[in-house]
């Protein structure tokens, strides 16, 4: 490992901030891991800015924009740029973090496989791809050629590659979930962002990850379990992709003895694709509840599923909060889930809604379900009288304790806050503890996003 370190700025150890920039060669870590390390470092006393990232064009530009002087770098190098009075000391912390990371990957196997192709020589049933989008195609191709179904969590995969992968998958009779598939559950195993669900009769086909999380969480709260959630990727029902994975997933669930009812969650599909999907649905033996956001809200879909199964629909858990703040100004949607955001905007019918999980906000930083920074800033920027409607999504992969940062920001925010808390009682974050923390911070908490949106509207 070669390292070059350059210091600039004021007196080290004094009250003056200094920059520490270094490059490390031959060290690779995935971006989410590095973002978590960056966040931990920037939380240290005496550290103002911490960038630990692979030296891609994008990350170099980010660092340059922040005023760091950077040496020549290649995308394979690890860039470390720290600023603050204690920036030098933080480097030692960083080394601890990185050693721990490389040890954990090094111990996994004597010689771990380097490609999906080589990993597929071992017994496996599914491939989960979350490498940067421009490299996801190769790994997904390996999976399909090995005859394995693949979930592509990565986003930013060109649509032409998606079409090619799905065409090939049809020839090989395997399922491609994604690209940009955030959520799947196979026989209880949560992949990506998914909730801890009890086993049960409802199968879900989802072109929207958070949409699927809302529906399945509500079902679980109603005591009804889920057989599988098969994500298909946000573009699957577009005219270009033609619903290839949706159709395959529907047929798989139809053949699955554990699935007694299918819920199809998506934004409204392209018209010709909708027609094709409808034709396929008519051939299935299993009843299908379609939840096309905009035509039917997700809570209604969950309720329809329960009724179709002959089960009763409960009152969805909600925790009224009292902030004492005056409401009546603007409505601001501060969301992390795209489908939840559009559903809420449609129901509220007014206000300004921002999906911080959108590509425009996640370039160079982790998803808001992991990194709350942008939403914390948005909360602080509200004005008295504003009503903030926000989602908090629990489950695997999500922030291990979202209330830890958000509840404090909610109590200090000038606005009245309504939280749509998407999760189950089995989730690692503990739904009830999260709800209590938000309520104590003054927010009103709903487990149904639609109900949260209606409540927010009623406050204006």
């Amino acid at each position, binding site marked *: 490992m070669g390292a070059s370190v350059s210091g600039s700025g004021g007196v080290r150890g004094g009250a003056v901030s200094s920059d520490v920039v270094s490059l490390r060669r031959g060290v*690779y870590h995935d971006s989410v891991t590095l973002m978590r390390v960056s966040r931990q470092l920037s939380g240290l006393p005496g550290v103002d800015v911490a960038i630990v990232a692979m030296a891609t064009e994008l990350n170099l530009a980010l660092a340059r924009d922040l005023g760091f002087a950077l040496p020549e770098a290649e995308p394979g190098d690890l860039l470390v740029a720290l600023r603050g009075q204690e920036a030098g000391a933080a480097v030692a912390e960083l080394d601890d973090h990185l050693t721990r990371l490389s040890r954990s990957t090094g111990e996994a196997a004597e010689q*771990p496989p380097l490609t999906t192709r080589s990993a597929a020589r071992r017994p496996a049933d599914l491939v989960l791809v*979350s490498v940067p989008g421009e490299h996801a*195609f190769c790994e997904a191709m390996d999976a399909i050629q090995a005859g394995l179904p693949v979930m592509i969590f990565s986003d930013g995969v060109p649509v032409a590659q998606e079409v090619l992968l799905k065409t090939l998958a049809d020839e090989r*009779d395997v399922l491609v979930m994604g690209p940009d598939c955030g959520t799947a559950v196979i026989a209880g*195993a949560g992949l990506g962002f998914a909730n801890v669900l009890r086993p049960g009769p409802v199968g879900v086909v989802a072109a929207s990850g958070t949409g699927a999380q809302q529906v399945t969480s509500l079902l679980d709260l109603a005591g009804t379990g889920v057989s599988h959630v098969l994500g298909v990727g946000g573009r699957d029902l577009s005219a270009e992709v033609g619903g290839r994975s949706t159709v395959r997933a529907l047929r798989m669930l139809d053949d*699955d003895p554990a699935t007694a009812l299918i819920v199809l969650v998506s934004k409204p599909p392209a018209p010709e694709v909708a027609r094709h999907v409808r034709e396929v649905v008519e051939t299935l033996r299993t009843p299908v509840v379609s939840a096309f956001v905009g035509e039917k809200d997700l809570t209604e879909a969950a309720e329809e599923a329960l009724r179709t199964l002959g089960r009763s629909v409960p009152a969805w858990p909600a925790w009224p909060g009292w902030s004492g703040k005056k409401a009546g100004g603007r409505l601001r949607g501060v969301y992390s889930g795209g489908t939840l955001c559009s559903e809420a905007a449609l129901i509220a019918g007014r206000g300004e809604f921002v999906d911080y999980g959108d590509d425009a906000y996640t370039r160079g930083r982790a998803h808001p379900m992991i990194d709350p920074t942008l939403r914390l800033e948005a909360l602080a920027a509200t004005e008295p009288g504003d009503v903030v409607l926000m989602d908090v999504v629990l489950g*695997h992969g999500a922030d291990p304790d979202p209330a830890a940062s958000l509840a404090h920001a909610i109590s200090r925010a000038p606005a009245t806050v309504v939280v749509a808390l998407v999760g189950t009682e089995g989730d690692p974050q503990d739904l009830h503890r999260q709800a209590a923390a938000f309520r104590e911070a003054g927010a009103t908490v709903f487990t149904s996003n639609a109900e949260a949106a209606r409540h927010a509207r009623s406050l204006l």
Partner: protein
Amino acid sequence: MTAPGRLLASAPRVITVGAGLLQEALDAQAVETVPVAWRPPLPGTGEALAAVLADPRREQANALAVSRLTSALPQLVGVRRASDVLDLPGRTFLHAGPPIEWERASGPLRGALVGAMLLEGYADDEQDAEARLASGRVRLEPCHHHATVGPMAGVVSPSMWMFEVRDAEHGGTAYCSLNEGLGKVLRYGAYGPEVIDRLRWMDQVLGPALSAALALTGPIDLRALIAQALQMGDELHNRNRAATSLLLRELAPAVVDAAPGSASEVLRFVNGNDHFFLNAGMAAGKVSTDAARDVPGSSLVVAMARNGTDFGVQVSGLGGRWFTGPAGVPDGLYLGAYGPEDANPDIGDSTITETSGLGGFAMAAAPAIVRFVGGEVSDAMAATRSMYEITLAEHPAYQIPGLGFRGTPVGIDVTLVARTGLLPVVNTGIAGRVAGTGQVGAGLVNPPAEAFTSALLALADSAAQPL
């Protein structure tokens, strides 16, 4: 149960490639996983990789190419004079590696060319030879363009005798010169009187005797011989002791029968050179990799070769094109007082052994020489294991006892080299930098990544484009 239905039967075993966060979430659920230690591909190859992997011909083409490579049945069928079997019009010499001209030739190649001039009587002395070579009046062509391979400098001139190896499966033929021994030898760029005298003796005595002996033995099955030698501790590039012994056992009675007058000196010569088999093995590698050539859409490497200046590769789907990068200086052990400063950059066609799944790729078979290339037995095991990451197949006949008789990794795929950043492990001899020096050591060398990435970019340009 249908393939898609199997997915839903129970919690899946998941291959994870990418974010550690998702792997951790699966670990927390006690889901069985196979984590991939993914790294970004070599710089500048991302788009080309997608284009080549999307090529609808690739999968079938690679399967065909590598099956031809591993199904080849090389047999030693003769020993013949180069003037009789190779097309060497006028004053033409063959040399190792991709094409090169005198001006760019390194010390050992120049030395070997000078030696060949003297051997063939094309020049009166060293200065005369160099002047004639520099004037361009001698044609230089790569061995690989003549179904031939040559170790180190790889210089072939008309009066040299060649192993003739035929592929009984696909019908190809390949040639390689006879091995002169170690130390001051032409292939390492030495051209002193003892070198020329030995080559004259090989022309007049060794070549004819072996030729006559092979006429008596009939074809010798090199595939079986190599398979046995691997189980006896050879990796067939830097260690050929077992293979040489096996070959000698086959040949000895026939040499005695065919050339009773010279038999003892011929057999003593072969016995005195642990690397005598190397050249026959190289011809076997060449005839096998040639069988895999010219499959449109295939990303399989069919040749890796160095001329002392450039390291070149050829790819099945790209015909006879060479893709080159600067040859590196090997890292290894040095003879006597020689050191790294005396070493010439990597040279020779002997990388045909690695190309066909032997040599560095079979290091795990040859624990006896791991020290020679600066390591421990575990390094040899790791070297071979890592090559499974960049190869398309495991050789059905060439097996490694220490890996549970797993077949050697064979069939380098340029896309896998670019994706993993792992370069082929190459074992090699080290030639002296200065013409006339000879061998100075042996060790391992890293091929230049750009040879593989430029081949990949060319494949991307020629790919059928569904994207």
